[in-house]
Structures are given as structure tokens and as C-alpha cells.
């Protein structure tokens, strides 16, 4: 009695299989178009997906402490004598930024190197102007440089199109500092303080 019941159930399942086979015979064709995009983006190499980087350039003692670098207390000639062709290399930095667009844009600005709260008596300086070069290495060789020079009234950002893909290599973005000048002249004394500071802001964007 029990085995008879099992046999019946088995047949019923087979019947269902036949019904499915019959329905699959009527076919429909579906066309699915698969598309995708790659957004233009720039990232910092070394940290996956990073869109910012931060660093500090410490210039150390800014004034001359021995007559060999200019009158004591004035801006050291190691800073003031630096030029675009001969930058203050101790302050040079390099980074790797990767862009997947063909022609990124550099946007550079900086603030004066200043001592907060400095008094500005005649013969003294509490601000130092300087130039910064942001140099991008191009994939096809050569470089593109965006130069920004600070002033009492800060100029607008320096914007420069690279003109090629960024070289996909370490150190493809180099920052140089040079041309330091005390606001009240080379003979002015720099106000003493440990908090002389400036900020350079560099933006690398896909060119729209």
C-alpha cells in the first residue's frame, strides 16, 4: 500500500516536465545593448582613488645667520638668489598624479610666506614673496610649467593646460620654489617667529 502511493507521485512529476517542454517551444529574441563610460578623472598615485594630497616644505631658518649668506637678520641669499633656472632645490617636491584624460589642466595659487601678527615697522619685513613652479611631465616627452608668484595683492590662479597626457610615471608633478624677496627690500630685517607659513594649492583636472 505504501509503495503504491510513491509510484503515483513519481508519475505526476514527470507529467509536469512534459508541460514545461511544451511551453519552451515558442521562442522570443531579446537584444540587449551593453554600454559603458569612463569618466575623466585624476587621482593621486599611491593611494587608491585619492583626490587630495598634502605635504609640507620646511624652509628652516629664513634669515641669514652668518655674513656668508647676506647681512645677518635679512633674508638669506640662499633663498633670495634662487631663480627659476636655479630654484631652491632643498624645497623641491615631486608627486605622481594620474589622469585618464588626454589633456589635464593645472591650476596653481599660493599665499605669501608670512608671519602672523608681525609688526611692519620700517626696515623690517613680515612677508616674503616667492614664485612656485608646478611642472608636469608629459607622456610624449617634455614638460609644461605653471608659475605663480605671490604679491601683496595676490594675483588670480595660474591656469595652464598640459597639452598632452601626463606621463604615467613617478614624480610626474614637480614643485619648485624660488625668487624669494622680503616685502621691504633685501636690507630689511625679518621679524622673528617660528610660524612663518604659506600655502600652495595645486589642482589638476581633466580638461573639459
Amino acid at each position, binding site marked *: 500500500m505504501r509503495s503504491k502511493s510513491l509510484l503515483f507521485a513519481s508519475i505526476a512529476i514527470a507529467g509536469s516536465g512534459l508541460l514545461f517542454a511544451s511551453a519552451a517551444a515558442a521562442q*522570443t*529574441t*531579446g*537584444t*540587449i*545593448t551593453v*554600454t559603458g*563610460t569612463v*569618466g*575623466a*578623472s*585624476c*587621482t*593621486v598615485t599611491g593611494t587608491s582613488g585619492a*583626490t*587630495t*594630497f598634502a*605635504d*609640507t*616644505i620646511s*624652509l*628652516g*631658518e629664513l*634669515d641669514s*645667520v652668518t655674513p656668508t649668506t647676506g*647681512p*645677518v*637678520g635679512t633674508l638669506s641669499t640662499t633663498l633670495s638668489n634662487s631663480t627659476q633656472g636655479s630654484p631652491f632645490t632643498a*624645497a623641491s*617636491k615631486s*608627486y605622481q598624479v594620474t*589622469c585618464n584624460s588626454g589633456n589635464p589642466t593645472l591650476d596653481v595659487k599660493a599665499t605669501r*610666506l608670512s*608671519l602672523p601678527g608681525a*609688526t611692519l*615697522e*620700517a*626696515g*623690517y619685513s613680515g612677508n*616674503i614673496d616667492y614664485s612656485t613652479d608646478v611642472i608636469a611631465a608629459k607622456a610624449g616627452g617634455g614638460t609644461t610649467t605653471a608659475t605663480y608668484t605671490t604679491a601683496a595683492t595676490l594675483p588670480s590662479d595660474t591656469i595652464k593646460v598640459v597639452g598632452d597626457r601626463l606621463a604615467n610615471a613617478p614624480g610626474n*608633478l614637480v614643485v619648485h*620654489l624660488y625668487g624669494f624677496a622680503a616685502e621691504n627690500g633685501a*636690507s630689511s*630685517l*625679518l*621679524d*622673528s*617667529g617660528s*610660524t*612663518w*607659513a*604659506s*600655502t*600652495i*594649492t*595645486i*589642482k*589638476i*583636472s*581633466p580638461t573639459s
Partner: protein
Amino acid sequence: MKRALLIASTVAALAFAGAASAQSVTGTVNVTGSVAAKCFVVGGGDPSSFSGTIALGELASDGTNGPEGTLRTNLPTAAETVGYEATAQVNCTSSNVAVSLLATKLDAGLGVPAGSYTSTVNYTAGLNLLLDSTGTGAFTYNTLTASGATTGTTGAPLQNAANNVTVSVWNFGSQGGPLLRAATTYASTVTVNISPAT
């Protein structure tokens, strides 16, 4: 069924396009530096010291400037009398400056002469500083009355200018006497210390 599939794939493509906006990198590089507080002599070989001499000449009167043999009366009676001063340029990078002033008696080194003689002369030494904003800062030291160095602060930066430091002497008076013992080496030293102050 076919129409439904096409619509679904189109919607998906639009969603991707929205996510593909340009992504920029922004780098912030902070540049820092420092200037140590310091004071130093401008000109001359040693930036940490300066020296000078104020030659008073004959100290005793020849009879025309007081009783003969006594301290002559035409020695200066006020600060910064021409010929009785020494100047230097000292610059400090600090906005405030500490000063210490000390002088020794003008003395011939003959001990304490007896009777109406003396070989010691007292005087006032002065330090005058040219300051930014507030003009000048004056400090004095009297060799007769002072018991320790005169100290103080300027409250303002030294003016970055030539001869911003002047040391002068005046207000002379013999100690005892009143006759001055003969000697060629009546000598005194004015010591000035200028340092950064907070």
C-alpha cells in the same frame, strides 16, 4: 518583452553617465619657515660685540674750569654731548629688546688716596636707543648710586638704522678729594648688553 528590455538598458546607461563627472586632484603644500630672535652688530667683524672709546682727555682743571687740580667743570652735564659718546648699529629681529647697562667708576687704580686727594671719579652712563614707532629708549647708570645693572625692555623694535645705539657719559664728580691724583690711566668700562625679549 523586448521593449521592456531596451528601456531597462537605456536607463542603466544614463545612470553611468551621471557618475562619470570629471574628478580632479587637489594638492595642498604648506611652506613653513622660522626666524630666530637674535640681536647682532651691523658692520665690524664680530656680530656679537662692539667696542668704542670715549676719551675724556685731561680730567683736572688748569684753573680755567674750576680750581686747579680738581675735576674740571667743563665735562658734559647732559646725555649725548658731542665728543662724549660712542655709537654703533645693533639690529634685533625681535619686536622687543632687553637691555642691561653697567659701568665702573673712572678710576686710576691707586687705591684710596689720603687727605684731600682722590683717584676716583663717578659719572652717569647713558644708553640711548633709536626705536621704531616709539622714538627712543633711554637707560642710565650712575656709578655713585647704582647697586646693580640697570635693566629694562624697549617695548618696541630697534630701528634698523645706522647709529641706533648711543652710549654717552656725563654728570662727572670726584669721589672724595677734591684734588685728582696724577695718572695717565684713569679708566672705566661701560658694558651694554642688548638681547631679544619676548
